[in-house]
């Protein structure tokens, strides 16, 4: 009996071993200074990730998810973008303060990133092996032969068949799924502490999406890497994440464990997003009133010169004068469940 309980550890709670977060983001703000005005792409975002944990950042296009990831890597295009405030602590060390050379040594080594576009994220003129072995040569001072050997090993880990042959192939000879596997191999080559995955499956075939996600998460568990998964797909969130952050207009509007968020969303925007998901039930007529998918009225606001109040107020059917006057503070409504809404208690019965 005890054997069984040992093998089947519960997967949703935080890994018990991790006590201090490996990555802590505190009050991070990244603004773009454009001719039209200041664009607050990331505005006062705070979160932390523990080793082996999977954190999802969810939101519509243009809500600042990707910019948050790029800010953590200090790769915000400058000018016009700049990180104007906040701290990013990697193992307790503020990486916004280290030198560029030191930062370069950490990118791809301690923090790495998987990009959305596997089609264009590999250089078309170099072979897969050439690009993959570079990760080892950059950070681990390996000779070319050792690096090539390790690269083959990495390709095997991401389940690319015939890795020796693939090493000499060029990106255009690989399918999208294969390229994303190669990108995953590159990102995890140096066993980073934190992996930022920016919509890693969005550009892929639905049948491939699950495989890629599976590979990323299996390797992440093996290596104990903390994952920040950026996505707009609640299906992916439900399957993978321990905790979820919902972003809107560059700000965090809600944060909770995945289970809690799906069971009791406390922000009207989260409600809207969940309501906009298609359900199988709605197809067969058992849910006659929900046959039509709900939508969130209006558009994502342009982030230039936002008004003072809640960014979601113009699209929110519950918005009051209070909402339009000031952005609501982030309040812990239940254990580990934060929301930034003036009316969540009234609307959804508090914690």
């Amino acid at each position, binding site marked *: 009996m005890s054997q069984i309980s040992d093998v089947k550890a519960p997967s949703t709670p935080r890994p018990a071993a991790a006590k201090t977060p490996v990555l802590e983001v505190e009050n991070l703000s990244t603004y773009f200074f454009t001719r039209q005005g200041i664009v607050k792409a990331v505005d006062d975002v705070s979160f932390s990730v523990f080793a082996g944990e999977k954190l999802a950042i969810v939101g519509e296009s243009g809500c600042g998810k990707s910019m948050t990831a790029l800010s953590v890597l200090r790769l915000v295009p400058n000018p016009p973008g700049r990180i104007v405030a906040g701290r990013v602590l990697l193992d307790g060390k503020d990486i916004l303060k280290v030198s560029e050379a030191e930062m370069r040594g950490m990118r791809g080594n301690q923090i790495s990133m998987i990009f959305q576009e596997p089609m264009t994220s590999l250089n078309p*003129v170099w072979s897969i092996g050439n690009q993959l072995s570079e990760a080892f040569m950059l950070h681990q001072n390996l000779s070319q032969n050792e690096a090539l050997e390790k690269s083959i090993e990495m390709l095997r880990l991401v389940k690319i068949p015939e890795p020796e042959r693939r090493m000499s192939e060029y990106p*255009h000879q690989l399918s999208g799924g294969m390229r994303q596997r190669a990108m995953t191999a590159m990102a995890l080559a140096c066993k980073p502490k934190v992996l930022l995955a920016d919509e890693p499956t969005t550009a892929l075939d639905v049948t491939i999406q699950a495989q890629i996600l599976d590979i990323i998460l299996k390797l992440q568990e093996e290596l104990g890497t903390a994952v920040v998964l950026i996505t707009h797909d609640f299906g992916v969130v439900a399957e993978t994440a321990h905790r979820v952050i919902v972003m809107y207009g560059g700000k965090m509007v809600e944060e909770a464990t995945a289970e809690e968020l799906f069971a009791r969303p406390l922000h009207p925007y989260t409600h809207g997003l969940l309501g906009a998901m298609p359900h199988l039930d709605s197809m067969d007529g058992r849910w006659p009133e929900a046959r039509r998918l709900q939508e969130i009225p209006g558009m994502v606001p342009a982030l230039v010169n936002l008004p003072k109040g809640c960014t979601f107020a113009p699209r929110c059917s519950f918005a009051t004068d209070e909402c339009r006057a000031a952005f609501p503070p982030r309040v812990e409504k239940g254990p580990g469940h934060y929301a930034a809404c003036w009316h969540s208690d009234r609307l959804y019965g508090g914690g």
Partner: protein
Amino acid sequence: MSATVKNDAVADETGLGANGGLGEFKSDLALAGAHVKNRWQMAWFLTKRFPLGMGGFAVVIAFCLVAAFAPWVASQDPLSTNPGISLAKPSWDHLMGTDFMGRDLFSRVVHGSKTSLAVGFGSTFLSVLFGVLIGLASGYIGGWFDLVVQRFIDMLQSLPTLILAMAMAAAMGPSLTNTMIAIAVPRLPRMARIMRANTLYLRELPFVDAAKAMGMGEFRIALRHILPNSLAPLIVMASTGLGGAILVEASLSFLGLGVPEPYPSWGRMLSESAAEYVRTAPWLVLFPGIAISLAVFATNLLGDTVRDLLDPRERTSN
């Protein structure tokens, strides 16, 4: 699909695949219906597909061979004078006749190919090398640096090629190296412009971001990711510019500003004899003129074909 894969694998053996921007070339060949198994079949396919270009290529190779083995091709000394046979007509002893000093013209034309090719390739190499460095740095660094460098390039470009080359050649004095430099400098701006435009485009591509996220330094990204991706247009520019460079060398030498004595130069052969002997000894003008035309025509044909093969806008497939 399987045919494509097979051709890809095969093309790799020929070494084309390893060559940067040419990487896609092999799949283009496959799309064009080529069934290439080895170099010879590829050469045969290219000959059928681009007869003019391959003809030009053959002529360029022939010129290179003639230049390399000049003493064996023409056994007579191009510099030894013999007043006794001044202005001799073409004969078996002197295939192209002799000039007013009795020097064998065939030998001089053969040895002149060394000068023309050396200056043509040398100046093209110089203009590509420095054009690439300037364009890459200008496009990648951007900002004030880019602004200043581009205005400098504007200045160079506002002067006609030949005028600038003449001014430089006159200022630096005649020598083989100086002629190369004088021809390379006016050609710099176009190379630098193309390289800069390519850099501006390439540095925004996701694989550059991915390289940064992997911890690669800026210098390394520029040399490893941007430069190899610009190879195709650079090869096109270099090969189409080769004929022009040979022509400018001939023009400079004709004007007395090019390669000095005793190097035999086609352009100077023309100028020495054009005015005085064109009626009495037309072979003195005819043969160097044919050599210049043939070399320029062949390199232009080759350049056009290389452009057809490598320039994505000229591609008919995909």
